[in-house]
Each structure stands twice: as C-alpha cells, then as structure tokens.
C-alpha cells in the first residue's frame, strides 16, 4: 500500500504518546500515512516550524493555535486543532525545602489543591523573598492552570510570586539548583523531579480542573483546507492510538515504547506512572490519582469549542489579548469538532452532538448526548467550585478579574 508522508513535531512529553503509538503501532500506516516524527527542543521551535511548513502537524499546547490565530506570536497565522491528545497529565512539583515549609503550614500531602494552595499562600506571605515558579511556555495550559490555582488560593501571580519560562527537560535541574522553587509541567518531568531532585508533587491538573484538555494536534488552517483526507486520516490514527493506549493491558508496552531513545529517553518505570496514575508524590509516598492522564475516555480527543473559549478567557485574564467578540470568535474557531466528527463517523465512534459544554457543574461522571452514544463523560469540577458556562463568557471574564 502506498503511503503519504506526514511530518509531525513533538516535544519529549508523555502526551506525545498518541502520535508515537500512531506510528509505532501502525495506526497511521493503516490510514495510509507514513508518519515521520521529529523531536524538538522548545515550543518556540514547534511553533515556528509548524508555521513555516517544516512540520505538517505538531503536538501543541492547547492555547498555541489560539495564540497564533490571534496574532500574538511571531509568524502568526490561522492555526486549527481538530483533535485533542488527551486530558490531564500536568502536575505542580515543588522543591523539598518549599514542601517542608508548606507541610509546616498544613499542606496535607494528598494533592488536595485547596488545602495545599492555602498552605502555599501562608508560606508566600511569610517568605522574605519572592518565590519563583517555572512553566513551559507563556501561552500554555501550564501557565494558566498554575495561575488559576494560585489566584484561587489567594496568591496573586507576578505580584506575590514570580513565574518564569523554561523548557520541560530543564525544569528538574532548575529545581535542583535552587533557580526555581516549583514548576508546572507534564509527565515525566514531575516524576523525574521527584526521583532525581527530591521534589514533591504538590497537586495535579486532574484535581485543579477535572477532565481538562492539555495538548492538541495543531496545524495551519490553510494546510488543513488543502489536505482534508490527510487531516481525517491522522484524526482516526490518533483516535485509535488513544483507544489502544487506554487499555490497561497495553500500559507496559506503551511505557516501553515511550521510554525509548527517540522519544522520552527515560525509564519505562517512570514513564509508566502517568499511564497508570500511580504516582510517587515525593519521598516514596505512592498515591493513585484517578484520571491523571486520560488518552481516550470521556471524549478526551474531542475538541470542545468551549475549552478553546476557556483558554481565551485566561489569555484575557492575564492581559495577553483584549476581550472582544471578534477575538472570542477567532479563538473558538480554532477548535474544529466538525473535522473530528467527519473523520470518525465512519468508525462508528461516539460523537458529542454539541460543540460547547459547561464545565464545573459535574461532580460525578455523567452521560452527554452523542451520535452512537450516549457518551460517558468524566467529572469536570474546578477545585474552587468555579463554573464555566460558555453562554456567559463576559460574566466569567468579569468574575475572573477579581482576585479572590
């Protein structure tokens, strides 16, 4: 069978797993794709090479296609995301010194974001110097969820603590050398910080905002228009990789593949933690985190337009883009559930009927209406009880600007 070459950029992070499995387990080839994967060293390179067409598609942070489409980045151009590479996967890791101080202020050591955040707030208040946290890119889910957690805990980012940007592989070293006091990053870089630098995982994305998206497959809007068949093929390959990856029977094999030199170049044991959700959160304390990383369930690959809207609301909140109906429309148009549905309908996959959903109102799993459904969705609470209703965007933006 003849195949079409498709080049994809990725960063060494666990949630590149669906792209890697699409290649290594033959899902891409079955769709007629010769998927060539290129590991990059920075999100800036991913952004530039995707914009210049060196990559047809790339693993991207969910807010990256928005930033490009809104003209916030160099080489800005319309970018879209027709499929999501999973939910969760990030955590916030702090140095041993900061953890001891937080524990002294009542951090329970069970990842609870509210109690841990309250303890951090007390430490920040008492600290003679400004604490410094690292994130991986400015327009990143990490930046926004760290800021969300801090703000809801009574800590004002920038004023009370400093946030700096470092690429994922450099974060554990920066923590170890004392350059930063904590960081928010995807796996395996939290577990590596725990194992090699004595770090402690303070809390996780899966508890700050349950069932929330992190990485997407991004591509130029013009390229997608010109290659509808390739777009549909890669959506199907990623979807089937997610289905395979979600099966616990495949976790060992997935971890072994991801641990390989061309990908994470790490130990299968460390890589496996995120897949099973059994984390060493520091000093050998093991904790099972439900839905730590969700590659398939809960419509994990479906690009909800309301999720693009939430990220847009965060860009507004932190002064990166002006609030306007035009900007909101541009942001929302980046996520393309229509392409997702068109690609997966032939597989008989469960396809949500709506493009938007409310987040923060489900404390328990629930059914959402879907073609070939219903589709069981995961709980979607924000840890502070916040509710994001896409029909009330302006109210949400107004409420966020108040520091609680």
């Amino acid at each position, binding site marked *: 069978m003849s195949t079409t070459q498709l080049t994809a950029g990725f960063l060494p992070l666990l949630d590149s797993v669906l792209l890697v499995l699409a290649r290594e387990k033959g899902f891409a080839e079955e769709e007629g794709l010769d998927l060539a994967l290129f590991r990059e060293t920075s999100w800036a390179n991913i952004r530039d090479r995707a914009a210049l067409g060196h990559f047809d598609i790339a693993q991207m942070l969910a807010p990256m296609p928005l930033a490009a489409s809104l003209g916030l980045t160099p080489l800005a151009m319309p970018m879209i995301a027709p499929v999501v590479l999973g939910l969760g996967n990030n955590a916030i890791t702090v140095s041993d010194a900061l953890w001891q101080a937080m524990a002294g202020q009542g951090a329970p050591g069970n990842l609870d974001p509210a109690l841990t955040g309250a303890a951090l707030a007390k430490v920040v208040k008492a600290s003679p110097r400004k604490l410094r946290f690292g994130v991986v890119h*400015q327009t990143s889910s990490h930046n926004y969820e760290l800021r969300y957690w801090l703000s809801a805990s009574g800590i004002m980012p920038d004023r009370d603590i400093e946030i700096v940007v470092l690429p994922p592989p450099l974060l554990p070293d920066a923590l170890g050398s004392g350059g930063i006091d904590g960081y928010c990053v995807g796996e395996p870089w939290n577990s590596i910080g725990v194992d090699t630098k004595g770090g402690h995982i303070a809390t996780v994305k899966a508890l700050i905002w349950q069932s929330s998206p992190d990485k997407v497959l991004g591509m130029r809007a013009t390229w997608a228009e010109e290659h509808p068949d390739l777009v549909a093929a890669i959506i199907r390959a990623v979807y089937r990789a997610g289905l395979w990856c979600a099966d616990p029977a495949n976790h060992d094999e997935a971890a072994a593949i991801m641990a390989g030199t061309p990908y994470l170049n790490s130990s299968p044991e460390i890589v496996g933690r995120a897949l099973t959700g059994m984390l060493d959160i520091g000093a050998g304390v093991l904790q099972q985190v439900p839905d730590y990383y969700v590659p398939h369930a809960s419509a994990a690959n479906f690009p909800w337009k309301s999720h693009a809207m939430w990220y847009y609301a965060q860009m507004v909140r932190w002064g990166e883009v002006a609030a306007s109906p035009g900007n909101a429309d541009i942001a929302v148009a980046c996520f393309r559930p229509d392409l997702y549905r068109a690609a997966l309908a032939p597989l008989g996959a469960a396809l949500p009927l709506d493009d938007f959903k409310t987040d923060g109102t489900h404390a328990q799993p629930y059914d959402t209406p879907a073609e070939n459904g219903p589709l069981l969705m995961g709980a979607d609470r924000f840890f502070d009880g916040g509710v994001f209703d896409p029909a009330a965007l302006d109210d949400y933006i107004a409420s966020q600007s108040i520091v609680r």
Partner: protein
Amino acid sequence: MPNSALSILIIDENRIRASIIESGLREAGHERVTVIHDVNEVARTIQASAPDVIVIDLENPQRDTLEHFFSLSRAIQRPIAMFVDRSDGAMIEKAVEAGVSAYVVDGLKKERVKPILDMAISRFNAFSRLTRELEQARSELEDRKIIDQAKGILMKTRGLSEADAYSLLRSTAMNQNRRLVDIAQSLVTAASLLGP
C-alpha cells in the same frame, strides 16, 4: 558609519560558532557585538548592552525563556519582534533552515538588519559544513586504521605482501558488493574472536 552604531547580541551555546559569527560581524565593521553562551545571563546583558538585534541558535532549548523575557520587558522599553519583517518569508525560511533565529527591536529598518542576518545565516551554514567535513575526515581516519589492521592480519596469517593483502580485501569487497572497510571490520572482529 551607521552599521557601527547597532548593538548586536549573539546567544549560542556553541562557543566556536559564536566566535565565528562574532568575528564576521566585527570584520563587517560592527563594533558593538556581545556574545553570551547562557540565556540565564540575558537579563543582565540586555540591560548593559541594549541590543538592537539578537541572534540565537535554534537548537537552544531556552528560546521560550528568551521570548518570555521579552514579553516582560516593558520594563526595559524595548519591544522585540522575531526577524525584521514578517513579510520576508524567504529570509525567515533560510534562517530556520540554517538553524538560526533572530529578534529585532521593532521599528528598525530592514536594510540595516538584513546584512547582519545574511552574515549569521551564511556563517551558520559554513559552520555546519565544517562540522560535517570534520566528521567525515574523522571517520575516514578510523576506516584507514581498521583497514591497516586487517591488512596486518592477512600478511601475518597468509604470508601476503601488503599490496596483495590490500588487493585481496578489495576484491572480496567487490565480489560481495560491500564496502572495503566493512570487510576489514569483519576480518578484525573474526580474528579477535579466534584469538591470537
């Protein structure tokens, strides 16, 4: 001369390449050239040298750090854009192919910056060519050593002259459609397995 007035900052972890670019810029009459190898020094350096143009290697994992620093740099009042002109796609393409990225203070005239970027691009390309040639020379030297060893083995065990040993290796390689060095390597490996 207007060129000499531009302040240029080079950020490259590769010291040799950085100094090649630096000397090129100095030869072209630029006097205000600063070189750093570690992005962590960038805050201090930018305060001190107030660069108009920043050249950074694309393999540097700290590009995100640098860009974030620019976005915070309202404090230093120097808005910075990537490359001189977004519309100049061919130049950007050439730069990224060469492995270099540039940031330019907004409002700077294209004709002032273009020669600097052209210089950086051509020196980056020359450097990779050099590295490749060096690598090739190194591996040729390695090959030569292995072939000499193989010849030595044949001369000793078969009582051949050096010329005959070489032609035996050569004809075997041709018959088997393999590289001479591969045949030599097999022989050396086999000899070491069979013992002295």
